């Protein structure tokens, strides 16, 4: 109890402001205010800060509470207030969202603040801006590189070139560039016969399963850049697993999900890509398709970041109908039982050290692979703990962030080394490259294991 005197004299009375006054309606849906929705719900409990992987290793980083609600408060009182440059040290892991007991949309505030910082305050001729723009537009570089995959694989990891890239652009020379596949997912998909082939496969499979041949089971696959250019085997596994359950798959026109652009404050770039993605997805959603992603950052972008940041026609409908691939099967199929009844042998009969990506965590998906595969005979799966991998997409590629990124990842590397298996598993392609980089382990995607277990 406090030492304060009990104010026993206090006698509450009805507000005496007249009968017409309704104090809860002071700000009826006004758009004039620049109060970020939710900023006033922050009561500074600082629990968001306990989730921030950057604040844990970097004394200079003021944490999510400052980046979000506090910057907005400062802007309210001072017209000349400029966004603090520390917002560029936020890695956009979005873990703070899940922590806030008041539902403050922290990552939305961070994305908005970063966007404003980059467009209003950052020098467009600075090396940092150019470098960030190149990193954020990975899809563009990947599209060119994948035309000449062998040359690109050699050139991107060619020592002197990498030294030059670090010196001139600030892209760390410590990392191996991801390898480009010789056949992209889309090339494979087209050669296989595209959507028509998938429809035939699905119909045939439905007959085998004793379902109605024309049952309404169809999904639109958002493969993202990585499973197109770098790991088409993940996209192929996704197609085969879904067809195994009798789903017709289509792979509509798509651009980058925008995740690396949000993280670098390139909101205009992100919007251009988002418009293409929403337009092709919303047409399909209208026709009864659900959108499926195999990369958890892609599903996060479609479900959360787009509707939070952009006002694009049809985006809410797309967000409502977007799912992560395994999550979708968990809702609609008896996948748990199917996994319990099967086993896996061969190349994927392994003990896996599983890391849940931050963006999976934020969708409540951090446990699903562990919980599903723990009942699978022939393979083992061990969660390597809740720490962030530290790479956060483009973050760990920046020369000045490299050390921090490895320091954040240290806990995960240690847990991986202690885990029984020597093969890693995760849904996120950049987490996978950090896992490989830190431990030398090969890393697989849950869909690959699912394919090995369910599809003969």
């Amino acid at each position, binding site marked *: *109890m406090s030492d304060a005197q*009990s*104010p*026993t004299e*206090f*006698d*509450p009375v*009805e507000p005496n402001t007249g009968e017409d006054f309704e104090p*809860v309606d002071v700000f009826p849906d006004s758009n004039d205010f620049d109060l970020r929705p939710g900023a006033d719900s922050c009561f500074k*409990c*600082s*629990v968001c*800060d*306990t*989730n*921030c992987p950057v*604040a*844990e*290793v970097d*004394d*200079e980083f*003021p*944490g999510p509470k*400052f980046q979000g609600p506090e910057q907005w408060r400062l802007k309210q009182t001072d017209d000349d207030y400029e966004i603090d440059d520390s917002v560029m040290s936020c890695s956009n892991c979005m873990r703070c*969202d*899940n*922590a*806030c*007991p008041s*539902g403050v949309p922290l990552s939305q505030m961070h994305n908005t603040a970063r966007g404003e910082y980059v467009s209003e305050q950052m020098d467009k001729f600075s090396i940092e801006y150019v470098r960030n723009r190149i990193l954020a537009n990975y899809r563009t570089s990947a599209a060119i590189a994948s035309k000449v995959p062998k040359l690109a694989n050699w050139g991107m990891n060619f020592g002197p070139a990498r030294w030059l890239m670090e010196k001139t652009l600030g892209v760390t020379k410590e990392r191996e560039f991801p390898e480009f596949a010789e056949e992209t997912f889309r090339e494979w998909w087209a050669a296989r016969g595209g959507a028509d082939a998938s429809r035939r496969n699905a119909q045939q499979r439905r007959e085998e399963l004793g379902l109605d041949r024309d049952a309404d089971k169809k999904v639109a696959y958002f493969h993202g850049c990585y499973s197109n250019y770098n790991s088409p085997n993940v996209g192929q596994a996704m197609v085969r697993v879904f067809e195994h359950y009798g789903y017709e798959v289509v792979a509509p026109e798509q651009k980058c999900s925008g995740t690396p652009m949000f993280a670098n404050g390139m909101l205009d770039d992100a919007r251009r890509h988002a418009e293409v993605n929403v337009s092709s997805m919303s047409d399909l959603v209208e026709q009864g398709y659900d959108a499926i992603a195999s990369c958890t950052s892609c599903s996060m972008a479609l*479900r*959360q970041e787009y*509707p939070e940041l952009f006002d694009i026609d049809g985006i*809410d409908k797309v*967000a*409502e*109908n*977007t*799912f992560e691939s395994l*999550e979708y099967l*968990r*809702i*609609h*199929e*008896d996948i*748990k039982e199917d996994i319990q009844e099967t086993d896996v042998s061969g190349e994927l009969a392994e003990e896996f050290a599983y890391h849940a990506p931050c963006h999976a*965590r*934020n*969708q*409540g*998906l951090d*446990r*699903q692979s562990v*919980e599903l595969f723990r009942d699978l005979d022939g393979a083992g799966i061990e*969660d390597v703990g809740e720490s962030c991998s530290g790479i956060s997409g483009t973050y760990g590629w920046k020369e000045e962030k490299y050390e921090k990124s490895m320091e954040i990842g*240290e*806990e995960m590397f240690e847990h991986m080394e202690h885990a029984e298996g020597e093969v890693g598993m995760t849904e996120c392609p950049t987490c996978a490259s950090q896992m490989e980089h830190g431990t030398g382990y090969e890393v697989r995607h849950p869909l690959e294991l699912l394919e090995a277990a369910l599809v003969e």
Partner: protein
Amino acid sequence: MAINSEVLVIGGGLAGLTSALKAAREGADVRLVSYKQSSLRHASGLVDLLGYTPDGEGPITDPYAAMGDLPEEHPYRRVGVETVRESMSLFDEVTDYRGDHTDTNALVPTHGGTVKPTARYPTGAAAGLASDDRDVLLVGLESLVDFDAPHAAAHLEAAGVPFDVRGETIRFPGDLQADAKITRYAKLLDTNGDVAVRGRKKGARDALAERVNTVRDTEERIGFPAILGDAHTDAVRAALEEKIGADVFEVPMGPPSLPGLRLEDALFEALDEAGASFETGNPVVDFDADGERIETVYIEKNGAKIPNSADQYVLATGGLVGKGIESDRESVTEPVFDCHIEHGEDRYEWFDGDAFGDHPFASFGVETDETLRPLTADSAVQFENLRAAGSVLGGYDFAAEKSGSGVSIATGYVAGENAAAEAR
């Protein structure tokens, strides 16, 4: 189709975690869903059973003995004293907490310098008990303004503790920023990471011990704010004890709290070992019921509604603070299943004029039958497969009684046990 389980627990606090753990240990297929991360990270990490009577008398020496005198509608009376003991054994089994050697409340100093009667405390707080008569040095950190060591020491002295207590404030080696996060301190100590002291690099544990040694007199016990590591807290404490040559303890802090985080980790780990499933980050927003039974609940994920079905449900969503109970100017409601909550019609009846008076709102919550099934306004069972546990329950004022954790553990235990029994 839906994501299926036998028992679905809604809520990830102490009550939800205990009921999921109990149900899983009884052999049920259990799934726990929680809107946000567990509220345990807001909690001090101390586990109270009953510190004061509803009339404000105390501190109570033996909480079990005092439970018989509680009003009939109190959750402890609903579940019975023996069940409270059983539920505490389950808690003791899955944590490394102390205090289980006696029925008597322990007296633990808090960061404000008060002494709190509590039933269980983390190992890290053990050397700090107020019943111990060895002298104490409290060490505060300049950059950590939530703990003012000289002030806390003065308060403890005024509270009449049986030892001499002194507070000193030092700089955390490496001069962390004034707003450094508690996880920053914990990580540095966990890894014994390098900090710069007068231009030279040194391990954080060694450097901290050296600074304490410059202000220590002959005290045999040194109390720090609760920042001594996260994953390796025992090792951090042991290293400091060796270098200082005194017992080291943590003083529980306000939110965000590392002892709360560690307790959360221990309970989720136990739940994982028991084979249960869990998911955090998305709220339950809707449900389908067929007459007397709940069939499916819906979790919302950015607009997408994910169906979750179970045979039995446990509601452990918390009280007014945890948002398991909501109120506006007209009424008090339970937002998930719209369970009945008894409250006066005029909102001016919900509180007392005296700020420290006996506020009716503090005891608002759902009423239940003996098996913890919520009751309607006419005292009928609302859903035959729904139970409630923790601070969503009415009939007690946990803030005044210091009974929040105990009620959550005991009612969670009973709800989980009954749900598992029904599910099979």
